[in-house]
């Protein structure tokens, strides 16, 4: 039945297809999906949808359940409860070889005893597509991944990046409804990874189907995706566009995992709608609330990104929130100088660019740390909730 649907439609190479435009809605829907291994919950109640043509990232630390989620969509794992819908059809218990999604595996999993052509032709041959059509399709796919002359090579003769592209072609040749990628760039070195990020985006635009990829690299997720789902310990913490997630994290974990953040635990002095007042040092500061709403006395975490923090000798004027600090340490990091400041016991980290003119500062000097009002955010819950994300140290950008 998979065959009967895609063979005529076959999304070809020209972006969005008639099928995708016709159906319009989401290609993959997870409905309260939970996966348990024994006593261990790998995925808790994942509930989201991925529309046609979206570049969707699942991001999180090791063991957060992102790979398990991908494997459930692919069909290698069966959800303990909940349902997975693929183009509207419940496929939760359908084996992988009857689902019209294809996977690009982390180590590519090219068949070492077959040449590139046979590797790419494996899927269509399984589905008994005529050899003549297979030949055309494989040729087209090798063109899309720009490896036209490589059909007769063996996988071992290819570089990592070329193997990666063959793995892409092998998946795309089947005209899947969505492509699943498991840490697609994890096995490549830095330079190649950056080149493949651009290449992947280009191919995704060209074929126009949804790409769902799993990564633990927040920079990769920010750079490539239309939307990101941040996962932690089996829970989906937040889903949104990269800008939303970076600028308006909803949980302390997300704030610490995406980029670096100054996170101070405090309690709410007064709450009013979207904002609340807290006390930092001796100052009462008002900031927007992100995520769950809070009430007076609730523990909250005050967040401000290090690159938004200004360091100055004089107290800045209005429109800025400021705390008095002492310089603890300054470390040259290239594009920025990292200031570690001490604000009455709380550590403040500021990243100061090379073109901000600053007097020569030494450890011990008294300075003001300030930020624009819209740079600050209040997150419900204490920083300790973030587990392994200690205060003011997030993942590197």
């Amino acid at each position, binding site marked *: 039945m998979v065959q009967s649907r895609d063979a005529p439609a076959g999304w070809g190479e020209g972006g969005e297809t008639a099928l995708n435009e016709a159906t319009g809605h989401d290609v993959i829907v997870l409905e309260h999906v939970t996966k348990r291994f024994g006593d261990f919950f790998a995925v808790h109640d994942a509930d989201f949808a991925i529309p046609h043509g979206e570049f969707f990232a699942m991001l999180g630390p090791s063991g957060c359940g992102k790979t398990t989620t991908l494997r459930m969509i692919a069909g290698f794992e069966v959800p303990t409860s909940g349902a997975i819908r693929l183009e509207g059809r419940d496929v939760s218990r359908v084996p992988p070889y009857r689902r019209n999604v294809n*996977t690009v595996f982390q180590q590519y999993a090219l068949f070492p005893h077959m040449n590139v052509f046979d590797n790419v032709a494996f899927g269509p041959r399984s589905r008994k597509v005529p050899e003549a059509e297979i030949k055309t399709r494989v040729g087209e796919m090798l063109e899309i991944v720009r490896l036209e002359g490589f059909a007769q090579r063996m996988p071992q003769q290819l570089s990592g990046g070329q193997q990666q592209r063959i793995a892409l072609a092998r998946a795309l040749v089947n005209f899947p409804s969505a492509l699943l990628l498991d840490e697609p760039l994890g096995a490549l070195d830095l330079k190649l990874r950056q080149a493949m990020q651009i290449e992947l985006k280009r191919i995704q635009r060209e074929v126009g189907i949804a790409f769902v990829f799993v990564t633990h690299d927040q920079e990769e997720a920010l750079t490539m995706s239309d939307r990101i789902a941040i996962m932690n310990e089996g829970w989906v913490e937040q889903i949104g566009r990269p800008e939303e997630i970076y600028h308006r994290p909803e949980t302390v974990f997300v704030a610490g995992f995406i980029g670096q953040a100054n996170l101070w635990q405090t309690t709410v002095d007064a709450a009013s709608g979207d904002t609340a007042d807290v006390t930092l040092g001796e100052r009462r500061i008002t900031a927007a609330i992100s995520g769950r709403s809070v009430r007076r006395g609730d523990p909250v975490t005050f967040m401000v990104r290090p690159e938004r923090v200004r360091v100055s000798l004089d107290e800045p004027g209005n429109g800025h929130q400021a705390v008095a600090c002492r310089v603890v340490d300054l470390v040259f990091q290239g594009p920025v100088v990292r200031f570690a400041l001490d604000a009455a016991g709380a550590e403040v980290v500021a990243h100061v660019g090379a073109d901000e003119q600053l007097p020569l500062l030494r450890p011990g000097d008294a300075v003001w740390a300030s930020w624009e009002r819209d740079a600050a955010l209040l997150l419900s819950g204490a920083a300790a909730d973030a587990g392994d994300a200690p205060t003011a140290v997030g993942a590197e950008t």
Partner: protein
Amino acid sequence: MAAAVGERDATGARRGRFAPYGLLSPGVIWLALFFLVPLASLFQMSLSAKESRFDFSPDFSWKWSNYSDAVSHFSAQFWRSFQYAGAATLLCVAIGYPLAYVIAFRGGRYRNLLLGLVVVPFFTSYLVRTLAWRTILGDDGPIVGLLQNTHVLPENGRLLATGISVVGGLTYNFLPFMVLPVYVALEKIDLTLVDAAKDLYSSGWRAFRKVVLPLSLPGVFAGGLLTFIPAAGDSSTRSSWVAPTTR
């Protein structure tokens, strides 16, 4: 890390350049002393004219006719050895491949235990094992009695010292030599290849035929060699399994 590895390799290459053949010496000496010398001696003996097999006087005479004599006198025995060994090798594949497959892919953490169980009988002495089998399969033993009573075997049929028993004995003795290389070949196969095949619309059986089987063939081939060659050599000397009538 990659740098360290690369640079260590360079060091290794240098060591190899300075002492390339000298390093071979322990193995070469061992081989020469315990393999080539006996082999050469045997070869010399094979070209000597002798009155009896137990006469060790060095009466060397380039007697190549020994070989043609051996072939013409013992061709039936040679042929039968090859037949027995071939049958035993096929049986070893038929039993050993599924066994290795189950251990490699379904064994989980019991893998090494299961492999150990396959090999462990071979730590008992060859003589003790043979003696035990004679008891079980002997003309007066329980199996023959049962088979005769159920008329699977004719009234005066036997199991020991028949062609079947030779092949069975060879299979039994060389099965580990088939299981181990096949296991090694299977164990090396990346299981995500099977996932990939399934992802590409292949059922489990097709994934086996197209991916697992071709990738494990080198192991089967190695196991076949390890089984066939010594089995061919052994089957002719395995007198305790062979009946007077087939000898």
